């Protein structure tokens, strides 16, 4: 049955849900509730899939993606590959509130965040550094390369493009990488 106010979120992140609900209960806006829920997960590093200190890339760096959308006005703020700023959803809200753009990315998103008063700091954690080191010792497995040489199923990079007519890597392995501890 339908009930309002209400908040629903993906995965079993109950503390994030509660953070959002606590604002809805106080008659605050759904936008603020979304920021509270996502910020809570960023703080808690939910399953290492949200916030700083998780999901290192091939260079060992953690970057953040976040978006907020207002259903009434269709305003959106989004950041992608945000570097060295911990507050992904809050920076996304700042994009929505302090620019007429929709999405900022990478170092330029970082510059925007700093201009809006956010702090620049490392997003690495002991956990992410450990994940990165273990990944290297496993021969950089798994990874997301295909049709390159050396064979990405057996070797680390750097890689160069492989002639597609010469050899075509099966990418079905990619589906096995995603699970409840590794997802977008």
């Amino acid at each position, binding site marked *: 049955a339908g009930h309002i106010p209400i908040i629903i979120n993906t995965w*079993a992140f109950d503390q994030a*849900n509660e953070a959002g609900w606590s604002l809805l209960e106080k008659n605050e*806006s759904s936008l603020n*509730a*979304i920021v509270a829920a996502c910020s809570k997960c960023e703080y808690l590093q939910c399953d290492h899939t949200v*916030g700083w200190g998780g999901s290192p890339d091939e260079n060992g760096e953690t970057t953040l993606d976040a978006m907020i959308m207002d*259903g009434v006005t269709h305003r959106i703020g989004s950041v992608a*590959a945000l570097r060295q700023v911990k507050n992904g959803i809050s920076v996304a809200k700042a994009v929505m509130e302090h620019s007429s753009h929709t999405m900022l990315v990478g170092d330029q998103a970082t510059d925007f965040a700093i201009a809006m008063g956010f702090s620049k700091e490392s997003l690495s954690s002991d956990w992410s550094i450990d994940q990165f080191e273990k990944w290297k010792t496993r021969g*950089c497995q798994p990874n997301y390369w295909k049709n390159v040489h050396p064979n990405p199923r057996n070797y680390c990079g750097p890689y160069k493009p492989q002639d597609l007519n010469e050899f075509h890597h099966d990418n079905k392995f990619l589906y096995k990488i995603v699970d409840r501890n590794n997802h977008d």
Partner: protein
Amino acid sequence: TIGAVAIDRQGRIASGTSTNGMNHKIPGRVGDSPIPGAGSYVDQDVGGAAATGDGDIIMRFLSSYQAVENLRNGMDPIQAANAALGRIIRKYPKAQVGIVVLDIHGNYGAACLNIDGGFPFIVRSWAEQSKHLVKCV
């Protein structure tokens, strides 16, 4: 990733996502979470949705937008969620994706593809917080 959709006491709907992406991704790679219509989408007229899982696949189908359009076309949230993922399964039958859908009246539903053990999601309204687990296609 967390994806969330909320409706406040004034009936205003909003959504959001936050993630650090995939482990060991190629530097510069971005998933579905920051892309409107992919990671989440809301429309005050009908409702909203948030997707999670393999962002490289989700962004090719704009699954959240599709789910909201399904609501607009008269589906209930569960039907809308399943139909949105149906677009994916025809092209990528092994993709791992979950989606939650909330209509503007506060009715909700979810669906998933290939997530071991099912797809959990959390709901809170005036009643106590409830944890749900949907079985995947």
